[in-house]
C-alpha cells in the first residue's frame, strides 16, 4: 500500500436531535490515491467529510494527517492542514473574476494593496499546470457549471491542499465535462494529491478509483481494493438489510383503485424533470412501496400527491376525483393522510402542544366546536385517548412537542394521520431515525389498517426492511421514473433491488405491464 496520508479513526457523530450519523468509522487514504467513499444518501458520507473539513465536530474519534494526530477546529484550520473540499453547491462570488475567487483568503499583496496581476498569474499557472481550461480573468458568472467546479478545485489547490474532497462532483456535470474532470483528477493524483471521491455512481467509482470505502447507515462496511470488485458487489455492500425483519401479514384483499397517478411530470426551477412520466395506481387494502436512492423523485412525488406543490402535466386521481385545482384541505377531506418526510418541518409545529399538534387537521371542524368556542373538554378527552392508544411518552397533552424524543414526535404525527379517517395514507420515510419499537408500531399499524380498514397506502422509504416487508407490491424509482415493479415485495432479493436502484438494470414497459 502507498504511504498513508490520512487516517480517520473511530469517528462517531451524534446530531443534537439524537440521530447517530456516523458510528465508529475508520478508514485511511494513501498518497497518489483516488479513494471512493460510497453509500446511499443518508449513509453519513457528507457528515463524515464535514467532520474532516472542520464544519462539524464529532463526539469521538481522531484524525491523523501524515501519521500525526490533528484537531481540525474549522474549515480554515482544515485548509491550513492541507485539506480542501469541493462542495456539491459551489461557494463562489459570481461577480468577481476567477483569479479573485481563487485567491480569496490568500490574496497576493503589493504595497498593502491587492495585487490583481500576480493573482491572475498565479491562478493561471496552476490552472495550466493541471490543464484546467479556465481563463483567470473571466468573471465567474460567465462560466459554465463545469468550469465553476474547476475554480472550486483551484481554490483548494492554491491553498496547498494535499487531500482533496469532492462531494458528488459529477452530479452537476455533462458526460463530456465528467470526462474532462476525470482526466484532471488523474493529473492531480499523479502529482501527489490524494482525492476522496464521494459518489453513488458506481461506474465512475470503478473507472477512476483504486480503493473504495462503503458506508451504510452511518456504519463503515469496510475498505476494499477496486480490483477484484464489480459494481454488483459494491451495490450489495451499499444496499442491504442490517437485520432481516419478518412480518406475518395476511394476504391483501384488494378492492377498487383508490389512487391513480397518470403520467405525472414535474419540472423543477432549474428545468430538470424531477418526475418524468410516473404512472401507477393503488387499490383499496394494498400497500405499495417505493424503493430508490433518495433524490430520485420520491420527495417531489409525495409533495405533489399531498397538494403542497403543483406539477407540469399528468393527473393524480384520489377516490375518483382529480386533485388538480384542489387545495391541501380539499385533498385531505377527499381521503388523504400524509406522514411527511421531515417530521420537524411538515409533521409538527414543535413549539406547540401535543394536543394542538394531534388536532391540527380537525380542531376547526364543527364536531370540535361549541358555538364560537373550541370544545376544550372533548378535544382534551380525545387527545388523552390518543396519547394512551399510541403510547406517546409525555407529561401530558400540554407539553410542547419539541421536548419529545424523535420516536414520540413521530407518534404524535401518526396519532393525527392514522385517526383522521382517511382511506389513503401517504407515508414518506415514516420510521426514519426513530427507535425500533416505535418503528415497528408504525409499520404494524400501516399493515393492520390496510387489512382491516381497507386503506390504501403508498410507502416511500429508504429503509429496505420496511419497503420489502410492509409492502405488497414494490416499485423502484430512479431519475423521476418508475424503473422496476415487483408483484410481491417480500420475494425480491436485496441484490436485485440494489441493481435497479443504482441504475445497473431497468425494466421495460412490457415487463412492468399490469404491475403499475
Amino acid at each position: 500500500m502507498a504511504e498513508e496520508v490520512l487516517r480517520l479513526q473511530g469517528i462517531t457523530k451524534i446530531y443534537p436531535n439524537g440521530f447517530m450519523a456516523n458510528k465508529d468509522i475508520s478508514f485511511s487514504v494513501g498518497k497518489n490515491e483516488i479513494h471512493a467513499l460510497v453509500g446511499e444518501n443518508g449513509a453519513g458520507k457528507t457528515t463524515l467529510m464535514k467532520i474532516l473539513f472542520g464544519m462539524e465536530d464529532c463526539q469521538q474519534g481522531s484524525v491523523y494527517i501524515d501519521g500525526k494526530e490533528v484537531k481540525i477546529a474549522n474549515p480554515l484550520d482544515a485548509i491550513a492542514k492541507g485539506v480542501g473540499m469541493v462542495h456539491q453547491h459551489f461557494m463562489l462570488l459570481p461577480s468577481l473574476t476567477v483569479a479573485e475567487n481563487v485567491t480569496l483568503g490568500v490574496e497576493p499583496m503589493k504595497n498593502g494593496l491587492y495585487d490583481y496581476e500576480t493573482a491572475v498569474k498565479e491562478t493561471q499557472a496552476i490552472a495550466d499546470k493541471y490543464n484546467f481550461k479556465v481563463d483567470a480573468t473571466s468573471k465567474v458568472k460567465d462560466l459554465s457549471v463545469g468550469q465553476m467546479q474547476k475554480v472550486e478545485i483551484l481554490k483548494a489547490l492554491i491553498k496547498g491542499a494535499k487531500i482533496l474532497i469532492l462531494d458528488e462532483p459529477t452530479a452537476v456535470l455533462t458526460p463530456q465535462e465528467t470526462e474532462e474532470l476525470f482526466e484532471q483528477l488523474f493529473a492531480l493524483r499523479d502529482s501527489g494529491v490524494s482525492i476522496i471521491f464521494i459518489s453513488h455512481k458506481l461506474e465512475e467509482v470503478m473507472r477512476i478509483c483504486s480503493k473504495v470505502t462503503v458506508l451504510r447507515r452511518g456504519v463503515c462496511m469496510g475498505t476494499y481494493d477496486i480490483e477484484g470488485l464489480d459494481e454488483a458487489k459494491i451495490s450489495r455492500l451499499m444496499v442491504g438489510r442490517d437485520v432481516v425483519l419478518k412480518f406475518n401479514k395476511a394476504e391483501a384483499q384488494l378492492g377498487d383503485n383508490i389512487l391513480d397517478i397518470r403520467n405525472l411530470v414535474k419540472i423543477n426551477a432549474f428545468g430538470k424533470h424531477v418526475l418524468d412520466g410516473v404512472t401507477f395506481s393503488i387499490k383499496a387494502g394494498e400497500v405499495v412501496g417505493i424503493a430508490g436512492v433518495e433524490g430520485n423523485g420520491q420527495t417531489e412525488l409525495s409533495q405533489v400527491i399531498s397538494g403542497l406543490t403543483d406539477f407540469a402535466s399528468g393527473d393524480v386521481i384520489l377516490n375518483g376525483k382529480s386533485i388538480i385545482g384542489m387545495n391541501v384541505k380539499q385533498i385531505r377531506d377527499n381521503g388523504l393522510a400524509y406522514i411527511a418526510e421531515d417530521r420537524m418541518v411538515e409533521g409538527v409545529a414543535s413549539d406547540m402542544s401535543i394536543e394542538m399538534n394531534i388536532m391540527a387537521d380537525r380542531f376547526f371542524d364543527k364536531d370540535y366546536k361549541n358555538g364560537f368556542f373550541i370544545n376544550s373538554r372533548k378535544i382534551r378527552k380525545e387527545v388523552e385517548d390518543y396519547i394512551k392508544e399510541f403510547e406517546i411518552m409525555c407529561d401530558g397533552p400540554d407539553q410542547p412537542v419539541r421536548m419529545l424524543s424523535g420516536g414520540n414526535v413521530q407518534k404524535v404525527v401518526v396519532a393525527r394521520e392514522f385517526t383522521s379517517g382517511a382511506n389513503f395514507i401517504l407515508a414518506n420515510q415514516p420510521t426514519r431515525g426513530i427507535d425500533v419499537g416505535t418503528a415497528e408500531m408504525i409499520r404494524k399499524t400501516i399493515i393492520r389498517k390496510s387489512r382491516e380498514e381497507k386503506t390504501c397506502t403508498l410507502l416511500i422509504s429508504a429503509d429496505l426492511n420496511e419497503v420489502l416487508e410492509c409492502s405488497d407490491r414494490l416499485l423502484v424509482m430512479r431519475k423521476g421514473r418508475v424503473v422496476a415493479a415487483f408483484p410481491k415485495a417480500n420475494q425480491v432479493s436485496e441484490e436485485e433491488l440494489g441493481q435497479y436502484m443504482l441504475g445497473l438494470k431497468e425494466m421495460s414497459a412490457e415487463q412492468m405491464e399490469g404491475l403499475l
Partner: protein
Amino acid sequence: MKKGQRKTEFIESIMEVVRIVAGMAIAYAVALLILILISDDPIFIVKQFILGPFTSLRRIGSIFNLATPLIICGIAMCFMYAVNKFNLIGESIFMISACAATFVGLQIGNSLPMVIMIPLLMLVGAIVGIILAYIPAIMDRKLNANVVVVSLMLNSVIAQLTVWFLRYHMRDTKLSYLGSPVIPENMQLPSMLGGLKVNAGILIALVIVIIVSILFFKTSFGWKIRLVGSNPRFSRAVGLSTLGISFAAQLLSGAIAGVGGAVEIMNSYKRFQWIATTGHGFDGMVVAVLARKNPILVPIGALFLAYIRIGADVVSTSGDIPSEFITVIQGIIILLVAAESFLSGTKKKLIYKSVEKEEAEKRALAAAEKVEEPQKETETVTEEYKAPDGVVDTPEEEVK
C-alpha cells in the same frame, strides 16, 4: 427514555427562568457601572430608579396610565408576532386613529352619553386601523413585498398625512402650538381610585386582554394563528390556509392598534396634539416580545416597561442623570430577555451532559453483561443508528 425526557424538560424550564433573571441582572449591573462613571451619587440614583416609581401614589398611578396604551399595542403586536409578520404599521395607526377619534368626537360634541360615545370612538379607531393595516398586509399576501419595509415607509406617509389633517382641518387657531380644540367631556375617560389617579382606560385595556386571550386559546381562529406562526409549512401540510390566516391576523392587529390610539386620546389627553408618531407601535412590539406572544402575559410586560419609564422620569427629575440614559438600560434588558438563544449554549451543554451520562450508564451495563462488540458482517449490525436522543440500544438486546 421517559426519565431523560423529564430531565430535558426540567433543564429547559430552569434555564428559561435563569435566562430572564440573568438578563435583568446584567442590565442593572451595566446601568450601575455607567452610573458610577457619570454620576456623583450612583447608589442614590439606582435606588431612585428602582424604588422611585413607588414613592408616591401619583407615581404608582402613572405606571398604570403609561401601561394602558402599551398593553393595547402589545396585544395588537401579539397578532403580528404570532404569525411571524414583523408588520410595524401599528406605529402610525396608533397616531392616525387617535386623530380620527378626536375629529369624530369633536364633530359629535357632547350630544351622546359617554357609554355610547366611547365604544363608538373605539370603533372609529378600529376601522381606521383595519383600512391602513390592509395596505401592507395585501402587499405581503399578493405581491410578496417585504412587510417590514412597506410598513416602515408607510409609517412616515401616514404620520405626515395626520399632521397635514391636523394643520388644515382640525387646528385650534387660538393655540400658539399645533393642536386640536379641546375634546368634549363625554369622551374623556374618568380617573379612578382617588389619589392613585388611574384613568379608566386601563379597564378597557384589560377587557381587550381578556377578549384576545380567549380568542387565542379558546377559538379555532386563535389556534390557527398560533399554528401558522409556529410552523407555516406544517400548517399548510395539514390543510390550513396560511396566507389567509396571517392576512386576517394582520388586519386584526391593525384594528386593535387603532383602538389603542383612540383610547389613549380619551385616557390621557385633552386635545390631539401629536406632530410625530409616539413610538407606541414599536413599544408594543417590545411588549409582545417580552410576553412571548402570549396575550395573558402582555399586561406584565407592559407594566414592566412602564415601571422602567417612570423610574427614568424620577431619576431625571431628582438626580443628575438624563432620562436618555435609561433608554440604554431598557435596550439591554429587552435585548437579553428577548434573545432566545442567550445562554442556549449552556442549556445545550447541560442537556448533552445528561444524555451522555445516561449513555455511559447503559454502556457500563452492557459491559457488565460481557457481550461481544458488533462485527462488520451484515447480520450482526443492528438498527442502533436509529436510537433517539443519542440513546444507543445495545445489539445484545436485539439478539435476545
